[in-house]
């Protein structure tokens, strides 16, 4: 049986926004209004009681690190920013969209733990490197291995072959994907996120996180996701199926210009923020 093409995988994957879709559209409509205010956006979010509670808990967590306690959605949006709230909703909707994936090859909870920790790492590295929009790197990290879930969901027989080969020959999971399919999970993610019309820098960062030097247009962002994935694999926070810590690309490390002694602080930051982020995204 021939492996599916990338286009076939993308077409077979549901494109709806899940239960957050109407809320996200309503926020977009409010933002487009000339009378738009933080209060209007807060009114939209407050219609979802669960989301409101989670957003407030999240805003008061170590991840956000604000020195004052936030008690209203308006305050939370004002300090976090509307763009970040939208990114959080996007991330929540993607996690929800893949909630039905089988645990046969990889524990879905463990998969998202790995992904969330990679997102936290991406944001911390972006902050350390003083990059603009560190929250965008959180979303890139969160989605970096989404192609693997698409493969399990849409091509389970090929996924089985991949995992068998990976176990039998003790090779990297990504190498097994290339041998069975002719492409890997990052190619699948790139095609999917492109079809969902995600920002190009995010699509390229996710689509090149194993070969960050090969993508000039998003070299730094891809290097951030690459290092984040490396650190989180080394920390063993969750797993996207890979048993080894894949090698760190020396060019990616050089691109980021981070000093080795910053690694301890980043690892500590991931540990400090992980519980709050997990509660925000995986508590439903």
């Amino acid at each position, binding site marked *: 049986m021939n492996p599916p093409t990338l286009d076939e995988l993308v077409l077979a994957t549901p494109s709806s926004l899940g239960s957050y879709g109407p809320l996200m559209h309503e926020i977009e409509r409010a933002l487009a209004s000339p009378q738009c205010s933080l209060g209007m956006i807060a009114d939209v979010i407050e219609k979802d009681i669960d989301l409101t509670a989670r957003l407030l808990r999240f805003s008061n967590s*170590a*991840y*956000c*690190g604000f*020195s004052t306690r936030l008690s209203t959605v308006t305050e939370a949006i004002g300090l976090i920013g509307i763009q970040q709230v939208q990114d959080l909703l996007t991330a929540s909707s993607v996690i929800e969209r893949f909630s039905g994936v089988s645990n046969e090859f990889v524990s879905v909870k463990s998969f998202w*733990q790995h992904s969330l*920790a990679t997102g936290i790492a991406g944001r*911390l590295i972006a*902050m*350390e490197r*003083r990059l603009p929009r560190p929250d965008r790197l959180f979303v890139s990290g969160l989605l970096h291995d989404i192609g693997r879930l698409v493969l399990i969901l849409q091509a389970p027989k090929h996924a089985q072959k991949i995992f068998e080969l990976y176990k039998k020959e003790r090779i*990297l999971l990504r190498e097994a994907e290339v041998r069975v399919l002719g492409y890997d999970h990052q190619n699948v993610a790139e095609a999917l996120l492109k079809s969902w019309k995600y920002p190009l820098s995010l699509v390229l960062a996710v689509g090149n996180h194993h070969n960050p030097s090969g993508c000039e247009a998003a070299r730094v962002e891809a290097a951030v996701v690459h290092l984040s994935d490396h*650190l989180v694999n*080394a*920390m*063993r*926070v*969750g797993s996207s199926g890979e*048993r*080894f*810590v*894949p*090698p*760190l690309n*020396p060019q990616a*490390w050089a691109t980021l210009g981070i000093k*080795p*002694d910053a*690694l*301890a*602080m*980043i*690892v*500590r*930051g991931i*540990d*400090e*923020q*992980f519980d709050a982020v*997990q509660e925000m995204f995986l508590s439903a």
Partner: protein
Amino acid sequence: MVVSEDVKNIDNMLLIPSGCILTARQIGILQAWGVDNIEVKFNGEPDKVDKLDTMPADALERLTSDVRASFWKADDADPVFAELFKVILRRRANRPVAN
């Protein structure tokens, strides 16, 4: 750690009030403002014992071997690998159970 004195910039603008728990994010903000030292105090908890420093030799050897085996490529001559290995080893000694 808790900030023990208000942290202000050169224009006397309050960056972090005293009593605030210092997080990685706030350290980033301080770096961005060029603040290179602040007064802190510990949260009142006794210093935790670093289990790596007190680990029996055979347990340390097993842990070292386990951590090394998890890396696809382990090159001690690479300063980045050497530092990360040290960080992960210490973390594993102190947090043996995965999240």
